[in-house]
């Protein structure tokens, strides 16, 4: 019989041997996947801890005046701004004395005294000063609030400068008063519109995604990779199954350790592929979408995993040592590939070597197979 025939017989025997491991593999994959997927879910939800800025309390006193309705309207608009909502809490105080008392007791950080006819002053360029009293100017909160108020004031300063310039120029050249009024109105509207609509000029984009998918998809892909790699614990007795006696007999038929290795790899591939199917079905149900093509595109990843397992198997004498080697390799590959922390959060040295190790590519391959990413 030729070497090829013996190899085919070895392959058949190994395939028969590996089928005995299938039930254990399927049970293990269900347990491991539940653990790893749950962990992935928890990590993806907690990785970016929500940073809540303690809102700064700002009190204001409105002096009774004819344009108080306009002031109230402006304050109402101010309170609805997203920047104010995330950083400040604005409320009225009844008297100036109350405001100072609250300031002293630390109930408010800023106290704004809106003078009489404040808005009329803005319109006719008398610009009655707005008094802002601050108790503590050394905390980050006071700096944030201060910067926010300076930004709002900047809108007003810029718009006023433009409006006054247009009116002055037109009047200097003795334009018709109606035209001056119309142009003033137009400039006023354009400058106000740009400020009012500013939120629509900014599109908020969530940066938490990884690659083409979401963070949860990334972690689920990493979980599948982790699970399949850890199945080495079940498959290690199979990989190291040829004892020295069997090896000696095989050598008489020109079947050496390399042939045994190849046979083991070939047999490990279908075992891992069958183990992958419950993960694929589970995640397709979770995703409410099946990427049938993914069952083909996952094959390179499965081959790579089979190679890693078998290499760990031939470099260790005992099952336990083999398991520990695979465990360490699994943790290293997963960490460097961004399976525990997204790529951007890894130290820069790790980010650089990541491209030379299979973890990143394996996670991408599983992401493509499971979610079509």
């Amino acid at each position, binding site marked *: 019989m030729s070497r090829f025939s013996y190899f085919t017989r070895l392959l058949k025997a190994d395939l028969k041997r590996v089928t005995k491991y299938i039930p254990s593999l399927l049970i293990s994959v269900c347990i*491991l996947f539940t*653990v*790893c997927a749950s*962990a992935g879910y928890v*990590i993806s939800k907690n*990785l*970016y*801890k*929500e940073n809540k*800025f303690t809102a700064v309390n700002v009190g204001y006193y409105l002096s009774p005046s004819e344009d108080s309705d306009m002031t109230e309207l402006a304050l109402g608009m101010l309170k609805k*701004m*997203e920047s104010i909502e*995330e*950083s400040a809490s604005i409320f009225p105080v009844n008297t100036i004395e109350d405001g100072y008392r609250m300031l002293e007791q630390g109930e408010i950080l800023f106290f704004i005294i809106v003078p009489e006819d404040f808005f009329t002053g*803005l319109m006719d360029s008398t610009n009655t000063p*707005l008094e802002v009293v*601050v108790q503590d*100017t*050394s905390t*980050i909160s*006071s*700096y*944030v609030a201060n*910067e926010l108020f*300076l*930004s*709002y*004031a*900047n809108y*007003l*300063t*810029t718009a006023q*400068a*433009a409006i*006054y*310039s*247009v009116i002055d*120029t037109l009047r200097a050249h003795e334009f018709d008063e109606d035209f001056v009024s119309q*142009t003033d109105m*137009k*400039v006023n509207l354009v*400058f106000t519109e*740009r400020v009012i*609509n500013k939120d*629509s*000029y*900014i*599109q*908020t*984009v969530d940066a*938490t995604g990884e690659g083409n998918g979401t963070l949860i998809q990334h972690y689920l892909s990493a979980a599948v990779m*982790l699970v399949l790699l850890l199945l080495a614990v*079940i498959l290690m007795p199979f990989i190291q199954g040829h004892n020295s006696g069997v090896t000696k007999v095989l050598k008489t038929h020109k079947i050496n350790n390399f042939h045994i290795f190849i046979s083991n790899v070939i047999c490990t591939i279908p075992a891992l592929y069958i183990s992958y199917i419950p993960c694929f079905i589970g995640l397709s149900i979770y995703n409410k979408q099946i990427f049938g093509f993914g069952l083909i595109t996952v094959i390179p990843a499965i081959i790579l995993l089979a190679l890693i397992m078998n290499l760990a198997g031939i470099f260790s004498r005992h*099952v336990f040592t083999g*398991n*520990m080697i695979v*465990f360490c390799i699994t943790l290293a590959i997963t960490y460097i590939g961004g399976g*525990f922390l*997204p790529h*951007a959060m890894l130290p820069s040295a790790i980010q650089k070597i990541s491209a030379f190790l299979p973890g990143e590519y394996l996670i991408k391959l599983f992401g493509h197979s499971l979610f079509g990413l």
Partner: protein
Amino acid sequence: MQFINRFTVFTKRILAHKMYLVMLAVLVFLTGLYKLLPSKEQSTDIKVAIYCEDTGEYFDALMAEIERSNSIYTFYIVNNEDTLLNDVKSSYAECGFVIPDNFFQSFIDGTADENPIRMYKTPSSTLPFSICETLFAQTYQIVAEQLMLSCTDLDAYDEELVSIYHDYTSGDEVFRLMDVTDHSFDFKTMIYRINIPVFEITVLLILFAGLLGLLLYQKDKEKRIYLAQNNRNLFQLKALSVLTSLLPIFSVGLICNVITYGFAEQVLQVLLTAIAVFFLAMLLSFIIRKSTLLEKVLPLIMLISVIGVFVTTL
């Protein structure tokens, strides 16, 4: 006497185990690394990444204006959107802004809602909308001149308009809010040590050592070494095997934690962990009676522990 003999033999055996020595070396190495690495000074200012696709002259003016405004946010320019995204994801930058091509002109034309600035943020981004306000206020200021000219449509008077506008912006006739902070803000830098999870690794190694002790006992038993022993002696041997596996790693771990954290809460927690692992190993010995099964379960227990430790340290 018999107890001391057994204790000595077991301790010698575990200390001859290469994997065990590696575990001890890892702990000592990490502690040394923690103590020997110099402290670093890190800026804690609020960094904001900015990438501009608009090739016009407005962007330079915008950055100059932000610089001049003495903002508490540190805006810095990146070369591409990927770097910006990376910085936001890694929390190096609180958030990032991508100014699209022709944004400033579309802002002047009133069509910026069709060509908006993209603000990248994560749930951990602090104050993105307040930062946005600073950026927008400066943008508003630098395009105001052109905005004014475009909506007046008086080409013949453009120069005069601009001149008067500059007079107003540099004068005191327009509304101004004075900076009320006293510039004593001292959050700019902090000293930190590189955070090495000595405590977490100690806990994991103690767990592993305890289970390794149990595994060694089970292997001995399966080799029929303890065939002549009665149940009481077997229990004592099992407890001793686990205990001797725990003690060296516990002692070294304790010293490493004292060196790293001082006599803090972690030191007590190391002691409690060792006690808990001892009882866990003893309990597990009644459930898993064969070493082959324990060999298979051990990586799973380790994996769950690693994930557990990772999740709790997030």
